[in-house]
């Protein structure tokens, strides 16, 4: 029974932490973007504008939730749920601190990859069920982009797996006790982070949404809380990718003095800020550039990284 309560509290703790982080990311992103654009951002509602988040939430809950008559109803309703569910499921394997994780399966890393590959369907189904040409183009772009970047997202993590000798995220963190994997796996880190930006379809890889060309891409028919779900899903996946980057390459919860959870949160926060900084400063590439970048540069680099890491690991073992 005690175990059960402990387990449940961890599950709810993770859920609440993830959702709160995602909600406050909206505020954080607006504030940081403003900071880097010489503005103030939302600073009226409450201290530092923090009450902006509840205000926005209340607003979005009471907005009209309209399903277009020409849409494919079932898929239209299911699509926003998929992204939130898959990302929240991925949070199950994140090791927040020693012993604090919902589950710690041996194939945690593969589970994360699998869930992020299922998240593609959210975008695809949203685009195709909206029955709108902008949505369809957005969904087409999203499919090609996510598929391409998923390939070497997995490959870029293989170096980490080889060094740690396990797919288990806890063991990966433990293996970085003496040396963070960002040093031996620097190319892997860069590749993973780029792939992470593309997977969350954030700027500069936000071609599926591309508000300047596609109005809003795959979610342009969505309104109310369904749109909110996409939004929350996007911010959740930013948090997830940041948490995963910290876990795989920056020693997860390891760090001196402070408690492990704080270290983990700090590292995650740093990567979230990096996400927003990248959004603030980089323009969107053309679509063929994006795919050529993935297949012609990043994929060979990822393969090369796997090859060299494997060779070095084998040589050191001998």
């Amino acid at each position, binding site marked *: 029974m005690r175990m059960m309560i402990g387990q449940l509290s961890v599950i709810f703790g993770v859920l609440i932490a993830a959702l709160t982080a995602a909600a406050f990311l909206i505020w954080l992103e607006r504030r940081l973007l403003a900071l*880097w*654009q010489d503005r*103030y951002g939302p600073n009226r509602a409450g201290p530092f504008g923090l009450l902006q988040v509840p205000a926005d939430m209340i607003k979005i809950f009471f907005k009209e939730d309209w399903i277009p008559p020409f849409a494919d109803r079932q898929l239209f309703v299911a699509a926003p749920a998929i992204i939130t569910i898959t990302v929240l499921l991925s949070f199950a394997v994140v090791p927040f601190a020693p012993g604090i994780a919902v589950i710690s399966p041996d194939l945690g890393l593969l589970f994360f990859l699998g869930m992020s590959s299922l998240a593609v369907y959210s975008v695809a189904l949203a685009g195709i069920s909206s029955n709108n040409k902008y949505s369809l183009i957005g969904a087409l772009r999203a499919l090609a982009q996510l598929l391409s970047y998923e390939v070497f997202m997995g490959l870029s993590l293989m170096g980490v797996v080889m060094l740690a000798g396990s797919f288990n995220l806890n063991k990966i963190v433990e293996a970085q006790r003496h040396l963070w994997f960002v040093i031996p796996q620097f190319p892997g880190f860069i590749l993973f982070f780029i792939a992470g930006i593309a997977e969350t379809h954030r700027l500069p890889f936000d071609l599926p949404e591309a508000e300047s060309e596609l109005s809003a891409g795959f979610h342009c028919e969505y309104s109310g809380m369904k749109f909110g779900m996409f939004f929350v899903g996007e911010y959740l996946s930013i948090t997830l990718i940041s948490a995963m980057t910290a876990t795989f390459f920056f020693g997860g919860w390891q760090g001196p003095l402070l408690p492990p959870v704080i270290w983990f949160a700090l590292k995650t926060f740093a990567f979230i800020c990096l996400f927003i900084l990248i959004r603030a*400063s*980089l323009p969107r590439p053309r679509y063929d550039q994006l795919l050529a970048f993935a297949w012609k540069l990043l994929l060979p680099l990822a393969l090369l990284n796997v090859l060299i890491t494997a060779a070095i690991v084998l040589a050191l073992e001998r």
Partner: protein
Amino acid sequence: MWSIIKALIITFRHAFRQRVTIQYPEEKPYLAPRWRGRIILSRDPDGGERCVACYLCSAVCPVQCIALQATEDASGRRYPEFFRINFSRCIFCGECEEACPTCAIQLTPDFEMSEYERKNLVYEKEHLLISGCGKYPGYNFYRQAGLAIKGKGKGEGDQESPPVDVLSLLP
């Protein structure tokens, strides 16, 4: 690659720049003296209405937001019976000010005139009239217009010459 990193660094350095935002309700923005805002009707230095109800402002208004009705007092001085500006239509173009021959209608540097009800944006003459001369102090149309009104005959004004007797043969 280097350019991307440079872009990130430049963006990051903007965190320490001066903000360009003006915190509006607490901190008022600078408005130039000729800023085109709320429209007013000004008065002569001696307190009479400047407006002579010539309808020029109403005619020139591109959105037809000015409505007025001319009338005369006992001495033959024209003035508007009512003067109404619908500020929910007004585009603050300033054409009325340029058209006005008596400098009566003027635009002021004031824009804080939001209302919760649209009909409150229709300003009547008592809302528009101010007690001063506005941008043109000392100007009095009837003192130089050559018209006979109460207290002043023809040609007795500041820059007026006596009327020419066209029936006389003298130069």
